[in-house]
């Protein structure tokens, strides 16, 4: 019993890692007043670019860095669409997601599946010490111990954070105060995109060591829900990611319970998604969206 519990806690931390990266990336973006629906495609691209570069160079770290750069570039493309041009953010984000997923799948076929099958790398191993809870990947440690505090500091204690929140709440005032709305929003999108791609790369470079189609499977949409659940705060969003991962880890354990083995495992797989929707239904009423959410800013 205790062992199962410890196993669930260990798995929770592991499963939550890509969601922590991605949802914190979305927090930064939305704090600057933009919904980034390209998150699903950016994670997908991160997963693909990460493993591809890692396989070509033989270095997992190089793969991760390449994924991060790719994510930042995607963020800038999103910036061109929604900041410079002011395209509807739902359409731009979803269009980019469709583009990135189909382009990654096409590249995967050109590079790998049309030739010698599948791209594989030897993935990162978790540290092995002090029992299952602390035997985690270095990226998991990085997410909770470095990334989340650093982003909290960035958002609430740094000048950049003030500018991000200002252009997200009231871009007119920010502009009058001498803050470049466009530059700040580009920065938020690039940083957010880099984090989303890192989350995707974690899945291929640490979890799996391989790439399959549909690898993100809605995790990006979950991350967006977690941001609303977390009310655009760093720690509440991290807690949301942990709760989601807890449901996921629990359903993985439940699948091993003999009494439940006749239950279709798909029901259990659907459970985390339904839990997120239920969570939103309970806590998502009258949430304070950033003031300039979804509104392009033009100085006319």
């Amino acid at each position: 019993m205790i062992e199962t519990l410890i196993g669930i806690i260990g798995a929770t931390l592991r499963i939550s890692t890509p969601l922590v990266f991605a949802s914190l990336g979305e927090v930064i973006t939305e704090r600057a007043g933009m919904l980034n629906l390209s998150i699903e495609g950016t994670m997908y691209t991160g997963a693909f670019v990460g493993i591809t570069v890692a396989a070509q160079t033989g270095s997992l770290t190089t793969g991760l860095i390449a994924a991060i750069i790719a994510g930042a570039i995607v963020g800038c493309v999103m910036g061109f669409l929604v900041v410079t041009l002011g395209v509807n953010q739902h359409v731009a984000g979803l269009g980019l997601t469709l583009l990135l997923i189909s382009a990654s799948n096409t590249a995967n076929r050109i590079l790998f599946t049309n030739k010698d099958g599948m791209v594989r790398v030897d993935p990162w191993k978790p540290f092995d010490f002090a029992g299952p809870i602390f035997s985690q990947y270095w990226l998991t440690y990085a997410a909770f111990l470095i990334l989340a505090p650093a982003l909290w500091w960035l958002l609430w204690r740094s000048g950049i954070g003030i500018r991000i929140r200002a252009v997200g709440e009231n871009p007119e005032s920010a502009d009058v105060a001498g803050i470049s709305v466009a530059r700040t929003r580009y920065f938020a999108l690039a940083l957010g995109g880099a984090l989303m791609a890192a989350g995707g790369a974690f899945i291929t470079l640490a979890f799996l060591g391989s790439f399959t189609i549909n690898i993100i499977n809605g995790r990006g949409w979950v991350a967006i829900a977690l941001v609303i659940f977390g009310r655009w705060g760093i720690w509440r969003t991290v807690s949301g990611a942990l709760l989601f991962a807890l449901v996921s880890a629990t359903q993985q354990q439940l699948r091993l319970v003999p009494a439940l083995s006749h239950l279709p495992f798909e029901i259990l797989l659907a459970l985390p998604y339904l839990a997120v929707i239920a969570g939103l239904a309970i806590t998502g009423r009258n949430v304070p969206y950033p003031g300039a959410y979804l509104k392009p800013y033009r100085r006319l």
Partner: protein
Amino acid sequence: MKLRIALRANRPWWLSPVLIAIAIILTFIISSAMIRWAGANPFAAFKYLLGSPLQSKFGITEAILSATPLVLTGGAVALAFRAGYWNIGAEGQLLAGAICATVVGLHADGMPHWLGIILVVIAGAVGGMLWAFVPALLRSRLGIDEVVTTLLLNPVALLVVTGLLNGPWRNPETQFPETKVLSENIFFPKVYPGSRIHLGLIIGIVALAVCWWVVGRTAGGLKMRAVGLAPGAARIAGLKVEKTLFTTALASGAIAGIAGAGEVAGVAHQLTDGISPGFGYTGVVVATLAALSFPAVLLIAFVLGIINVGSFSASRALSIPSTIGEVVQAVLLTTVVSALVFMKYRIVLDKGKHRD
């Protein structure tokens, strides 16, 4: 000197065709990069993508067949977007419609053919509506963002499909995760001899016509458009914004669900986990490219149907991945929405020393 974007005072007649042409040229250039990388000549690839389906009667009918679900999902998305309800769950609603249609198909032995067809269409609509119900309720009662909830229910719908196919509906003969071939009493009749075009196309066109009439010509449609354009003003004017959103969301779900029923009863004649290769998401592309106009949905669905069929010819002839068709569609969406910004705005060049 500095470039900036300013409101456009007038809109000359040649503007929109020129912008569309620019978007198409940009799409060609951007897609060419990927096609060249795949090892093919972009001109040859586009000749296959756009040209080869139009060269034979078979190609044209296959493109129309491929456009059929897109007519319905595109119409469903356009309807919801018109009311400002961001239904991005057409994929899940389509799958729910396909599941309910399959239920009818599994129990239709001994039923008259006409009754089977009516029931399967109703089942599809009910399935799509049920799947749209929870996000619609959460939005209209609690104000919870429908973008997230409709998106999250898409993977859930696929899990329900695979759960049914791996469990109670597994084909007893082949043991494959697909249902047995359903009762012939629900099969949609072919509407054009010698082709696979089925009743779903007619239903799709009728659905578009009804949407066009309701949205453009009735009081309810006027309310819907008002809610979509200015929800705050609509509320002050005494319109029941939430009720309008709820109704529109259910109608949108029903139309998407019928698309699923059409794929089951018109094409596959069974339920498989590949029943929809993303028709719901492509519906968003169709609706957006059509600028949410219902007649244009029909045209755009046909164009994307051509690309779908053409991507397979291009893949066979030039041995490039068939997913290149999806890339072209997504690039086209991005360039068109970017180009259309300049319908309302123009780029001006600030010379001089004055600060703006």
